[in-house]
Every structure is written in structure tokens, then in C-alpha cells.
């Protein structure tokens, strides 16, 4: 389970959490600490140079290491108390893995996560148990994430039981209160998950996450399995709970409109890296990474009058086993093409750099992005975009 790289990075991560040298690895981006907004809260969770590689094994006994899926490949950011940090990206970009590693549901390859200045990966099992009260998770699939053999009361009450609330009466009272809080009928405490609709099951999942009174909740695609008319109910609920309980969310999703609605800041992931991180309005109004531009352009407008020529990326996301050199987006980048394929995109990995207060992007040529550039790129594409970029000449 422990890989060799994990061992030698442990001392690397032993730096004090608040130390100033957090951004040592320029290529992996630095922590946002430039006071983007006046209301900046203190840092609740700090993710530092986080790496998660899944080894690919093979050979005769299945022990030789053939390579690794570089699911998360050097990610750093802060989550501030009381905010919602959105994390968007396409499937396979590593956003879910990142969420799991942050919660220490799977071990990291290297890097560190600090919650309230405690280095999480160095905690013993018992210490970790205490920390887990502070951080909980809401999963995507409300059908698969609830045990069908347990009643709602058992599901929601399990966490408190494990964490020492052994008095059954008190536990039941707590569960009832939680059910009320998430908008479920308290008398449903003895029902089983299959008796509920998808939206209601997701409310059960939220109640379970709240049972230990956490400060930090990772929401991994919490509404994407729900019907549209139910999505808004759950989004509003998450919003209300955040206000009432002062929760901090890491909101992982692929739906850009949902992320815009719920987030204060947004990080965009591509192939295991954060390519842009900015305040929500800045990111959506003035994106500074060509991938963010393309993502936003790809979202269908819910207004038939505004049908427009969009910027369509060619090809698929490359394999995370063998990501492209330099900038990982260079194989699909419209901006690079427009600039006449500059060399450094292929040779040099762009660091996540500050472009404006509250906005960071990892692009060598971020300053070249303008509405005109985007328009001209959209206009120049062929009518039938091919599935893959033409092989490099």
C-alpha cells in the first residue's frame, strides 16, 4: 500500500502548516493567500502539494510496477472557513479522487492536508477518529451510498454511536432533530432507504453527514443523480444548512451552472491539476485559462436566442497514465494554436500564477485571452470537429 514515493515525501510535508514556504513547488501552484476578498475567513483546510498515483501492476506475479495513473498530481489550495469552494472538471480529471484523499478515505502518495492546522496524514488512528468529527462527506449516488439493510435511524445514528453517543434515547432524539433539519419527516426514522425517492435519499445522506456536527463537508456531485426539479430543492437545502450551521463546503461537480450558483470560489481541474482558481464571478466572467474558456463555451445556453458558435475542443482528455509534457492541455489548446504553437507550452509546465486579485491560472499565455481571441478561435473551427486532434506534424 505504501509506495516508495510516499515514504520520502513524508518529511517534506512536515513543515509547519502556517509556514510561509507553502508554495515552494512553483509548478504545482501556490496557496492563494493574497486577500482576494475583504471577507476572507481564516483557512480551515489547507491542501498542500497533494499527489495521488494509482500504480498499474503487471508482470508474472503482478508485482512489477508498469506505471501509474496520476489521478491527482500536485494540487495545493486553501478552503476558508464558511466558504464554498467549487471544484469542476470533466470525468477522469481527478476531482473525486482529490476529495477522497483530502478526507483520508484513501491514502495520499505524497503531500499533506491540514485541517484546523493539524497535519492529517500524520495522525494515528485514534487521533484521526477525532478529526473525522470535523469532516464529513455527501456522496453522489443516493442509491448506492445508503445501506439498504439499515433503517434511516441506524444510518444517521451510526456516526454518533461510533463516536460515543451510546444512549439510545439521546441518539434517537438527535436523529429526529437531524431529519427535521434536512426536511424529512421525523416519523420516517424506522423506514428503509428503498422507501424514499432519490431526493429524499440525498437528504438522508446529508443528515448522516451532519450527525457529528462537522465544520467541513465534502459534497461529491451531490445533485447530479437527481432530476432537475429535485436538484434545486437539495441545492437550497445545502445553502440553508451552510448559513444555519456555518458549514464549509468543498463542492465537487461537473455541472458548471450548479457550481456557479453555489460556490464562492471555484477551482478548475484538468488531468490531475488545478489549472485555474478564482472567485466565482471572476472565473465565470473573465476566465484566464484556455481550458476554462472552452468549458464555459461548451455549456448549452438555456436561451434559444443566444445560440452561438461555440468554441469546441477537439479530441478527448489524454490518458492520465501518460499526460502530455509541459502544459497538460497543450494537445487540445485553441490558444496555443492561435499563437502559432509556442515552444514553451510543450517544454515547460506553467505554474499556477496570480493574474489578478483572487485569480490564479496555470497558463504561460493567460494574458493573451480576450473576447476577440475567443471569438476568432470559435469562428475558425471546421464545421465537423474531429474526435481527435490531427497528429502533430
Amino acid at each position, binding site marked *: 500500500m505504501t509506495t516508495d514515493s510516499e515514504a520520502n515525501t513524508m518529511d517534506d510535508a512536515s513543515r509547519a502548516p502556517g509556514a510561509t514556504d507553502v508554495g515552494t513547488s512553483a509548478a504545482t501552484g501556490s496557496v492563494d493567500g493574497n486577500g482576494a476578498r475583504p471577507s476572507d475567513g481564516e483557512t480551515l483546510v489547507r491542501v498542500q502539494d497533494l499527489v495521488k498515483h494509482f500504480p498499474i501492476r503487471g508482470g508474472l506475479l503482478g508485482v512489477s510496477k508498469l506505471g501509474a495513473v496520476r489521478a491527482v498530481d500536485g494540487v495545493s489550495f486553501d478552503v476558508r472557513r464558511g466558504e464554498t469552494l467549487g471544484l469542476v472538471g470533466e*470525468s477522469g480529471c481527478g476531482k473525486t479522487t482529490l476529495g477522497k484523499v483530502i478526507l483520508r478515505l484513501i491514502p495520499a502518495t505524497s503531500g499533506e492536508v491540514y485541517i484546523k492546522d493539524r497535519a492529517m496524514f500524520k495522525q494515528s488512528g485514534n487521533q484521526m477518529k477525532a478529526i473525522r468529527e470535523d469532516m464529513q462527506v455527501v456522496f453522489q449516488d443516493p442509491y448506492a451510498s445508503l445501506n439498504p439493510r439499515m433503517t434511516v435511524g441506524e444510518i444517521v445514528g451510526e456516526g454518533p454511536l461510533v463516536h460515543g453517543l451510546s444512549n439510545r434515547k439521546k441518539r434517537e432524539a438527535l436523529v429526529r432533530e437531524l431529519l427535521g433539519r434536512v426536511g424529512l419527516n421525523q416519523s420516517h426514522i424506522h423506514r428503509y432507504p428503498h422507501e424514499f425517492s432519490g431526493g429524499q435519499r440525498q437528504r438522508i445522506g446529508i443528515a448522516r453527514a451532519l450527525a457529528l456536527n462537522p465544520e467541513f463537508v465534502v459534497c461529491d456531485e451531490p445533485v447530479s443523480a437527481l432530476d*432537475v426539479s429535485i436538484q434545486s430543492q437539495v441545492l437550497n437545502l445545502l445553502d440553508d444548512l451552510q448559513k444555519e450551521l456555518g458549514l464549509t463546503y468543498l463542492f465537487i461537480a461537473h455541472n458548471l451552472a450548479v457550481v456557479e450558483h453555489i460556490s464562492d470560489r471555484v477551482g478548475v481541474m484538468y488531468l490531475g491539476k488545478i489549472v485555474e482558481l478564482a472567485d466565482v464571478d471572476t472565473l465565470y466572467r473573465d476566465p484566464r485559462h484556455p481550458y476554462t474558456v472552452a468549458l464555459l463555451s461548451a455549456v448549452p445556453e438555456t436561451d434559444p436566442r443566444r445560440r452561438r458558435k461555440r468554441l469546441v475542443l477537439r479530441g478527448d482528455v489524454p490518458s492520465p497514465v501518460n499526460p502530455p509534457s509541459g502544459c497538460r492541455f497543450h494537445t487540445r489548446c485553441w490558444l496555443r494554436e492561435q499563437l502559432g504553437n509556442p515552444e514553451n507550452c510543450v517544454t515547460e509546465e506553467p505554474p499556477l500564477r496570480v493574474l489578478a486579485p483572487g485569480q490564479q491560472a496555470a497558463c504561460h499565455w493567460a494574458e493573451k485571452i480576450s473576447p476577440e481571441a475567443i471569438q476568432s478561435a470559435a469562428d475558425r473551427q471546421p464545421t465537423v470537429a474531429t474526435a481527435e486532434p490531427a497528429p502533430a506534424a
Partner: protein
Amino acid sequence: MTNAVDAGDVGLLELRDLKTHFFTQDGTVRAVDGVTFEIRDGQTLGVVGESGCGKSITAMSVLRLIERPGRIIGGEVLLRGKNVLNYSDQEMRDVRGNQISMIFQEPMTSLNPVYTCGDQIAEAVELHEAISRREAWGRAIEMLAQVGIPEPARRAKQYPHQMSGGMRQRVMIAMALSTNPELLIADEPTTALDVTIQAQILELMKALRERNKMAIMLITHDLGVVAEMADEVVVMYSGKVFERADALTIFEQPHNPYTRGLLASIPRLGDKRERLEVIRGVVPNPLNLPTGCLFKRRCPYAMPVCDTPPPVRQVKAGHISRCWLTPESEPPSIGADAPPEVAEAAAQELTVAGR
């Protein structure tokens, strides 16, 4: 139904009061219950609704792909004025893939994993045209090139698992279009794909629609995709058409409270609302539908009269709505002011225990 129309203005496809019910052990599910609409040549019709509203079953009924315990129990499906429900199995086979093709949501499960992509397209071509294997193979490669797959000759020899989701959907589209159909039924064609790949596929469908002059019946729950693609929109709810109009009208002047609620509840890019409006409650249990209007328990305008099935009203030419609200009485805006407790309380009442 009584007076047949002249061949001259026979539309491409017309559904008249189509009813497809499923006779399950627990009772009858009226999945499609009196659906009427038409698609003209070259038109793109969007069919939207939440899961379980009957939009996919409508499409399957058009191709007569309903399996037991489901049965088409009434209505007509007129293809160029002829009711396909009366066709023999052989005639029906000629319609499928020839006049009407279909693409599905999940390209992995709808392609055969043990044949190469080229084989599967060539097979479709051979079934519908009297041409040699070699010609069919050539056509397969040509189709792959048309849908934007690079190196089509090499890709034709590959198996579905060797391709990404977006590529597989392109293969599905290539197969569907290989026989040059007049109508393409696309059932959630981009739902399983990432947004950038979805954009590629939508652009591709637009380009091919222009080139082949085909009509598209686009089934989706994504209002953005509909706004992007459709000329006309049908909104379905619990097996019935609740509203039908051209796309602009649906998005700008919807009449039906369900359509309004649906539009108000989705977050959009650039949307500055603090709270989303919600449609309270959940879709009714198909085994236990309310009497009268099927939407009444969730409707902010519900009135006593809603206990009686609502009429299908003509709001204006080409715009119909199934609702008691009269077109003149502009309904007030939906519930930003409706207290959440009320909505939640209503949701509780609607708890429907499955099975």
C-alpha cells in the same frame, strides 16, 4: 383520424393520442397516455421531461420496440400518413434503420462488444441495401469520416472498448445515419458525456442535420440542450404532453405551471439568484396517480377545479398547454415568496413508498 390528409401535406411523423401502458403485477402504469404531436421534415423536435415522464417510451413506441408487459393500446403513429401500428413485422423492420434511426444514451451498451465498429456499421448497411460486403465496408469507413473520426480506416477495425465515450457516440451516429434516415430519434444522446464532448456531438448533429436534411426527435432532460437544438418543444409529465410550442415561446412565454417551474428551478450560467425556486414535492407514483391534473399537488396555482382533468388549451397558434389556467390570466410569478416550510410540508405528504 377520420379524414385522411392529402399526400401533399402529409407530415413526416404524426402521433395521435398514443397510449402505451405497462401491465405489471402491481397495477397498470400508463407510461404514455394520450400523446399527440407531429414532426415535419427537417424539423428538430425536443421532447423534455423528468425521468419517468414517458419520453423514452414514446420514442420506443414509434419504432414499436415495446416489450412485455408493455403494450401500445391505442392511438396512431402515422409515418408519412400511414399508421405503422398496422404494419407487419417485416414492414416494420424496413422502417427501422431505414426511414427512422435511433441513437441511445449509453453508447457502450448499445454497441456490440465482440464486433468491430466497422463491422457493425457495415452490417446495418448490408441489411438495408443490396450491396456487397466490400462496398458496405467502404461505406462504413466513409460514415466514420463523416462523423469526424480521424483515421477512419484504422478505427473501423477497432472494437468499441478501444474508443472513448465520445468516439463511441460518434460511431452510433455513423451507424444511425448510414442508411440516410428521414428521422433520427436521439434518446439522451449526450447525457453520458462530458460537456466538452457534448459540445462536439451537438455541433456534429447540427452539421449532419443540415447536410442530410433530416428531422430529429431529441429526447432529453437537459433544457440547455433543447434550447440549443430544438425548433419546437414538447414538455411531458407523467405520460402526458403538458405543453407544446416553438422553442422561443417555451423559453420566453411558457404557459404551463410545470414548464415555468422547470425553467425557474434550473441554475443557469450567469444567474445571480441567491435561491433557486423549487417545484415542491416529487413526481407522482405512476401506480397511484392523482385524479384530475397530474401536477396539481406540486402546482403553486392549484385550484379546486384541478381535481377534474384539465383541458388542452390553445394559448396561441401552435402553442398548447394542458391546464385550467386560461391563457389570458397571466399566472403570477412562481414562489420565491412561497415559504420553504410550506414546500417541505407538501413534499412530506407526497412521500411515496416504492413497492
